[in-house]
C-alpha cells in the first residue's frame, strides 16, 4: 500500500492508538493524517483519545509527601 491510497475508518481505528504513540510507519502515518483531515468521526475519536491520554499523563504528577521530602533531605546531607 502506498501513501496515496485511501484507507477506511475501520483501519484508522485499528491503528489509531499506535498512530498517536508515533508507532506507525511513515506510509500509515500519512494515510491516517489525510483521513483525519477528511473524516469528522475519526477526527473526533482521535481528539478524544488524545485528551484522555493527557489526563492519564497528568496522573504522573503529585505533590511529594512530607515524609518523602524529609527522607530526601536526609539523603542529601549524607552525599
Amino acid at each position: 500500500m502506498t501513501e496515496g491510497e485511501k484507507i477506511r475508518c475501520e483501519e484508522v481505528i485499528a491503528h489509531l492508538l499506535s498512530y498517536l504513540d508515533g508507532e506507525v510507519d511513515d506510509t500509515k502515518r500519512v494515510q491516517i493524517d489525510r483521513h483525519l483531515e477528511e473524516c469528522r468521526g475519526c477526527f473526533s475519536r482521535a481528539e478524544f483519545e488524545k485528551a484522555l491520554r493527557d489526563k492519564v499523563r497528568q496522573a504522573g504528577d503529585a505533590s511529594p509527601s512530607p515524609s518523602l521530602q524529609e527522607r530526601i533531605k536526609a539523603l542529601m546531607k549524607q552525599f
Partner: protein
Amino acid sequence: MSNDAGDRAFFEAETQRLLGRLYGVALRLTGNQADAEDLVSETTVKAWSKLGQLQDRQSFPKWVFRILTNTFISNRRGAHLECTTSLEEDGEQRFSLFEKLHQPFLLWWSNPEQELLNKLLREDIERALDDLPESFRTIVVLVDIEGYAYGEVAENLGVPIGTVRSRLSRARSLLQRSLWEQARTAGLTGGSPAKEVLHD
C-alpha cells in the same frame, strides 16, 4: 564518591525540581505511598552514585526517570510483570470509551465525550490505573505517563515488541472499561447505571 560541591548543588536543585513528578510516577508504578517513597529514595541514591557517568547535564531528567523505571523493573522482576499470558489471551473484545459514549441513547447530548472528559476527576484516573494488573499498569505508565517508545519498553522489560503492543492494547481497554464503569456508577454518562448490564 568523586562528586564535588558543584555537582551536589546541581543534583539537589534538579532532584527537588523533579521530586513531584518522580514521586507521581513512582506512585503510579507501585500503587502505594510507602513503596513509592522507597523507590524514589533508592533512585536518588543510585543517581547520585552514578552522576559522574552523566555527560550531558541537560539530559538529567530523562536519565533520572530511566533510573527510577529500571529500579522498579529490577525490583519487581520475577514478581508479576511477566506472568500475564492468560490475561493477554483471554479473547475479550477491546473496550472503547468513545464507542460507548456514542450509543444512540446518549447521542441526544451535545457532546458526550467532552462532557465525560470535563467531569472525569484525577482520582478517577488514578483509581482506574491502580486497579490494573501490575504488568498492564507498568506498560501504561511507561508509555502514556513517561513517554517511552514501544521498543524501549520491550528492551526494559525484556519482552518482544509484539508483547508490548498487545499488552498495551489490553491495558488501555481495561483502563477505559474501568473509567466507563466508574462514570456510570457516578451517573456521569446520562444512562441509567443501576439497570444496565455493564458488559459489551
